[in-house]
């Protein structure tokens, strides 16, 4: 009994056989090296972080701590005259505060369908933004769908085709959207087309990569079966690969549609039109009621689109977390 309790109190590792103590020694050594590496990593990391923060503060036109009080002032002062004003701004109803200035002029931007029936300006812009996103998602997904099969090792081998298609996709994915939008704006003048093409290009790259990864993970047995039946390459892709990958493709496409709604808002703010531009103008001119009206509209539409696409995706491929795709944006 004495020996057992003695052993229990002892930290395991003392009084071991030669082999075990060797292992223990190695383990301790490993632990030491790991700790040293961890310490170095942490120090380097903290240094980079500190330098980054310092740099960011220096580079900013207003310093963080100087400007922090103004943030709260800005929030305090940035309130509409009455909560109803937000509602009026949203639906283009005349304001009782109207003084001829742009700030309270909600009605002049109405989009009339008939003599009396109109679409409120912000809603109209929101519809444009969402349509930009939808059109680019559809076209981008269609092109990515065609391209992805030529980027999959299991369908075209590891040759030149795959290399070229993959590089094209990578460049399309990484190419700054605003440059495409800016170049097209210079050629086609301001309008939604520049935004559509810019987002489409990015969509092709991003979806293409996700698509070919799905294709590469697909089961090749059906393909072999059809090959043995004398089916051509296109027929094998159509019947052996597409049925397997389609649910995942659609799911990724829906996720992309969500991201593209946000992207088209931002591109809009840079000059692509739509709700983004209207928002930039409203907040830049201190039009509180209009700003809040747009924020509420955007919030509602984004939540609605997210929920709808999440529901659709669940129906398509079951309860699988697909947020991985978000990071691929």
């Amino acid at each position: 009994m004495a020996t057992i309790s003695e052993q229990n109190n002892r930290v395991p590792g003392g009084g071991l056989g030669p082999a075990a103590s060797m292992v223990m020694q190695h383990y301790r050594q490993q632990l030491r090296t790991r700790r040293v590496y961890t310490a170095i990593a942490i120090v380097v990391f903290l240094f980079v972080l500190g330098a980054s923060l310092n740099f960011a503060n220096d580079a900013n036109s207003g310093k963080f701590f100087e400007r922090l009080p103004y943030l709260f002032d800005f929030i305090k002062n940035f309130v509409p005259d009455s909560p109803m004003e937000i509602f009026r701004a949203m639906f283009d109803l005349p304001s009782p505060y109207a003084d001829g200035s742009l700030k309270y002029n909600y009605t002049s931007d109405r989009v009339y369908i008939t003599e009396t029936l109109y679409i409120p300006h912000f809603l109209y812009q929101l519809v444009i933004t969402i349509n930009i996103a939808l059109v680019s998602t559809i076209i981008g997904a269609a092109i990515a769908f065609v391209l992805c099969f030529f980027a999959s090792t299991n369908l075209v081998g590891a040759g030149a085709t795959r290399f070229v298609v993959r590089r094209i996709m990578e460049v399309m994915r990484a190419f700054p959207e605003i440059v495409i939008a800016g170049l097209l704006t210079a050629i086609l003048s301001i309008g939604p087309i520049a935004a559509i093409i810019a987002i489409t290009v990015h969509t092709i790259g991003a979806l293409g990569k996700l698509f070919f990864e799905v294709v590469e993970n697909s089961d090749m047995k059906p393909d072999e079966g059809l090959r043995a039946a004398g089916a051509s390459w296109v027929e094998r892709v159509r019947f052996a690969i597409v049925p397997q990958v389609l649910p995942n493709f659609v799911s990724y496409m829906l996720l992309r549609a969500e991201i593209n709604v946000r992207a088209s808002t931002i591109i809009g703010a840079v000059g692509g039109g739509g709700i983004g531009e209207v928002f930039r103008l409203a907040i830049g001119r201190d039009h509180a009621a209009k700003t809040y009206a747009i924020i509420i509209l955007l919030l509602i539409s984004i939540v609605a689109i997210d929920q709808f696409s999440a529901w659709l995706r669940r129906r398509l491929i079951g309860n699988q977390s697909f947020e991985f795709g978000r990071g691929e944006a």
Partner: protein
Amino acid sequence: MTTSVPSINAADRERLRVAYPEVFHRSFLQRYGLLIGSGTVFLYLAICFFAFNVGPAFMQGQWDRASIYIQDWYSWRAQPRLRYEDDGSVRVQWSNRGQYAEGADIFWLQPTQNRGYKVTYGSDANRLDVTPTQVDVYVNGTAYPVTITEDAATAPAGAPSAIVQDGNKVIVHYGFAGQAEIRTSQVYVQRRFLGWANFLFDTRSEFWGKGWGELISLATVGDRLDPARANISHMWGDFLENTVWQHADIFSKLAQTLVMAFVGTLFGTLLAFPFAFIAARNITPNRAANWLMKRSFDFLRSIDMLIWALFFTRSFGPGPIPGIAAIFFTDTGALGKVYAEALENVDDKQREGVKSVGANPVIVNRFGVVPQVLPVFISQSLYFWESNTRSATVIGAVGAGGIGLKLLEAMGTNADWDKVAYMVLLILMVVFLFDAMSNAIRSRLIGGPSH
């Protein structure tokens, strides 16, 4: 071999049709579903095509400009104006872009004996001999004299299609090599060369106009041009201070963008990490806290990054801080949601194992949960970091500053497309580098390519 279907006799056909009606009479949706679906999509695209005025926009597009802009990406134009002086000589006036130093010897622009200038486009067969009264235009070796009076420059009859009379001026096209506008008071020359002009040093630098070999020998073994400092640091300084290309400014703006993405994602991760434990139902058994946390994540996530960016730009002024704040706020929401989902999917056996040795709740989470989810968390954060590097560019353009704003400014002038190309190249390089880095970290963490 025949292409016919294995034949079946008439009686059997009838019997099969009757026996398996569902095979032969498929529902309306089965038959036409694909057709209707694709028809709807095409109809939608067609409506958008007209609603967005795609046709007219393309028709009215300034495609001649497009080709110039695109050529500007990989080539540069020298644009001297050859002014006619009253004393019968020709004076060269340069635009402010200043690709040549004062008094430099330019091989394609040489003074002639009669105080005029000779402008060559590639070879002597394609050139202009400019004098105040007459410009001899050589196209493929043949001379076409353009006469200049007070009122108009006039091309000779029978000039080839490269020489165009446009009102009172004459325009000569030499393809990629450039063009010239012969006007009543001057010849406006555009001469195009491949590459980026003065990319390394501007004309004020002592290193300007030197070849690669000369530069390398100067940098390594050559005598000091400035006794106070080594040639190599002199070069680096001149490179950064290049007034045309603004390397220092572009690097600093790029760094701002990278800092936005890095700090924003990092802070988002740090905040989302503890909050996700509160949001996860299996970790925190308090329904109200779970609900509140998850709705906060949704709120942060659903307010667009643009809104956060403009909001903080309004309060902090342009710069990386609003960018960081915008990314931080959206990503706290997005990462929090992803983390909470990962936590709710953890394997409970490991927690029970740690619990069974009598550990307190914090320790249970530290050893029973964190080891499981940490690789997923880090991998997700890396994905967000990658994607935010791209988003930060756009956010910057909206007003947060950084390379995005710089790009927007360069594009706004419509004359700096070479600089745009340079910045795009830098961004692509950085994005690919980060892609590779985060892929390497991820595969070390998870083992093998994830996804």
